[in-house]
């Protein structure tokens, strides 16, 4: 019985979920304590994220930086929360 490389089709593929989020708010949690909330413009195969009108939040220092556009390197991304607002500040 060969294990199929294609997963059960009725499940939700992670990158499909990210794709559905394009144009909406997304909250991104990095490996470190940094988090980012913004509007998702797009992503690539390596899940580098292209964001617009976003805020970078560091919960330790509570510093909030607001910027217009950013290309975020996918190297340090741990979690993506579609529609998330980020930690309460």
């Amino acid at each position, binding site marked *: 019985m060969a294990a199929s490389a294609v997963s059960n089709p009725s499940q939700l593929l992670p990158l499909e979920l*990210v794709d559905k989020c394009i144009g909406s708010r997304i909250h991104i949690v990095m490996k470190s304590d940094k988090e980012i909330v913004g509007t998702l413009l797009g992503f690539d195969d390596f899940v580098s994220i292209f964001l617009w009108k976003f805020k970078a939040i560091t919960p330790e220092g509570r510093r909030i930086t607001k910027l217009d556009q950013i290309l975020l390197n996918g190297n340090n991304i741990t979690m993506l929360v579609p529609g998330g607002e980020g930690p309460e500040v």
Partner: protein
Amino acid sequence: SGGGGGGGGGAGKMADKEKKKKESILDLSKYIDKTIRVKFQGGREASGVLKGFDPLLNLVLDGTIEYMRDPDDQFKLTEDTRQLGLVVCRGTSVVLICPQDGMEAIPNPFIQQQDG
């Protein structure tokens, strides 16, 4: 000394030999719709109901709870948790996946009492 040059010749003919299928060593389909606990590089931990995954180990978790670490001791978990809801976990960041039930924390067996 001319050793080590002979290894390159056989690599060309991969087509007929083993067809490399992308088979995972861990079959996550048995965890679908079950609650799993995930640990990440950098020390974050979360648990949630597995809703989907791909061969790169990206995960979709529903009803996700993140377990917060103690700010003083980065490796100690506190009672603090926060709700994240439906999240995508990056497979490149995942270091451990286990079922939520049947696992429990024990006192650190490696700590040695240091005096002075």
